[in-house]
């Protein structure tokens, strides 16, 4: 079943005589329970697309349906935002309360959920992102990765079917990035929550089941990561790159070393290279 469906979705910013087209007729369907990464150069429209998913922006043309709700239907706005949560880039600017557990409860307070249920859900959400032991702490004393996980818990407590993350790791250190990515992956696999991840880190995109490449408001590629990253040259033309492990294999291939498989992680890459060198060694021995 599709949780997000767009039909000829268009959006443009209008200034006096100038019109800047940001999204240009997007047709993207996202399946429930999937993990989709959206990559694109700055200004490709990826963040604008994300903001359409829970009606922060409304389409100028075409339509977008999320969980069966047309986002331009104002009456169902809160229902929509409850089922499609959003996590932003700067963790400091999305934490409302001065204590971790109270921040997680913020969305639930807004939905007027009663206290007992609220405590249950806050506990479950904090445990899911592995922040339960920090529940009494002040958010400004946490690390970037921890803050971002609190922000994710705040969304999670509302029990959404889909979470959209707009470059959630852009301001974090490598340790924080790893924590956030592990959390996202476990939510997708264990809680069956649909994930839409906007990112500019290719190794993060490689972890998704599907990668959509946007350029100038249009879909340029839409395939599993292995297939998308095979097109290294075309991606470089769009100002994007591929994961280092993929790039290494491509470079070796150009030198005439025959590695067939596309590799996405360092481990895969090492295994492939190893198997090829073993081949060469046995040939030399003969």
């Amino acid at each position, binding site marked *: 079943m599709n949780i997000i469906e767009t039909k000829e979705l268009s959006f443009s910013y209008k200034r006096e005589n100038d019109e800047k087209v940001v999204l240009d007729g997007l047709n993207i369907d996202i399946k429930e329970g999937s993990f989709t990464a959206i990559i694109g150069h700055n200004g490709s429209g990826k963040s604008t697309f994300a903001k359409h998913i829970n009606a*922060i922006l409304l389409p100028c043309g075409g339509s977008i349906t999320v969980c069966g709700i047309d986002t331009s239907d104002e009456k169902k706005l809160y229902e929509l935002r409850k089922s499609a949560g959003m996590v932003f880039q700067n963790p400091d600017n999305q934490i*409302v309360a001065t204590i971790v557990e109270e921040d997680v409860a913020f969305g639930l307070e807004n939905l007027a959920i009663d206290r007992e249920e609220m405590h249950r859900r806050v506990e479950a959400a904090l445990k899911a992102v592995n922040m339960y032991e920090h529940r009494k702490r002040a958010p*400004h004393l946490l690390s970037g990765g921890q803050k971002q996980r609190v922000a994710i818990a705040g969304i999670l407590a509302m029990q959404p079917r889909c979470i959209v993350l707009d470059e959630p790791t852009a301001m974090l250190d490598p340790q924080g990035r790893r924590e956030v990515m592990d959390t996202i992956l476990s939510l997708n696999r264990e809680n069956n929550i649909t994930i839409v991840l906007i990112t500019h880190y290719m190794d993060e995109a490689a972890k998704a089941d599907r990668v959509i490449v946007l350029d100038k408001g249009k879909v340029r590629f839409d395939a599993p990561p292995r297939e998308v990253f095979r097109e290294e040259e075309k991606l470089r033309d769009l100002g994007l790159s591929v994961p280092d492990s993929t790039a290494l294999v491509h470079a070796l291939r150009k030198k005439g070393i025959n590695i067939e498989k596309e590799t996405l992680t360092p481990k895969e890459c090492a295994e492939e290279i190893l198997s090829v060198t073993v081949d060469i060694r046995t040939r030399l021995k003969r």
Partner: protein
Amino acid sequence: MIRDITIGQYYSTDSVVHKMDPRTKILWTLLYMVMLFVVDSIYSYGVIIAFTAMVIKISHIPLKYILRGLKPILFLVIFTAFLNLFLVDEGKVIFEKGIFSITEGGLWLAIKMAVRITLLIMGTSLLTLSTTPTVLTSGMESLLSPLKKIGVPVSVFVMMISIALRFIPTLLDETDKIIKAQTSRGADFENGNPIKRIKAMIPILVPLFVSAFRRADDLAVAMECRCYNSDAPRTSYRKLEFGINDLSALCFGIIMVCTLVLIEVVS
């Protein structure tokens, strides 16, 4: 400079004072302020000082920590004391030189004002030191809630305060960063006359304001995404519980008011 700011700071201990209902503490603080400015007799001050000392003792907050909060207003205390000392002309003259003269009344008033301001700051900081900002704001919301009936947007007001408190540390960090960035580019904030120094603040304030507005915008979007609607009814995560301690604290308040009234009438 930035580390001296202690607004809304919380000192965590496990004392009875900390566990008390915020409403009790707010009411007590108000009562305390009124008492401080109404009483006149030296014995009443004795009672209030003894009371303050007792609360500090049972709150388990180190006295040193509370006194540190007095540092920024030390100047104000000394300044008002001096004004009272030299300007009030009442009673017997104790000391005279040229145009300066100190009278008995002036001396008494100077001491009284200094004690008043000191106690006022200590008392109110006890409130914020023993209560987290969130609890404090929910206490305020509960106390102000009767005003909702006449159309005062109490919850919006309380939300504003709690967000302001939430962003104090964030913006302080930011200010620190901006000061460092500007200093590294050769800005000088420490030398020159006061006008020059005020002018030197501009390169700090402009980026600070720009970033504060950007943060406000981001936060508003993030809050909307979490279904915030200031008009809709909300529930509260934290439950305020008015317990036996609160009741006894309020009873004690009444006893203390009676005692003070008695002292004032007698003297």
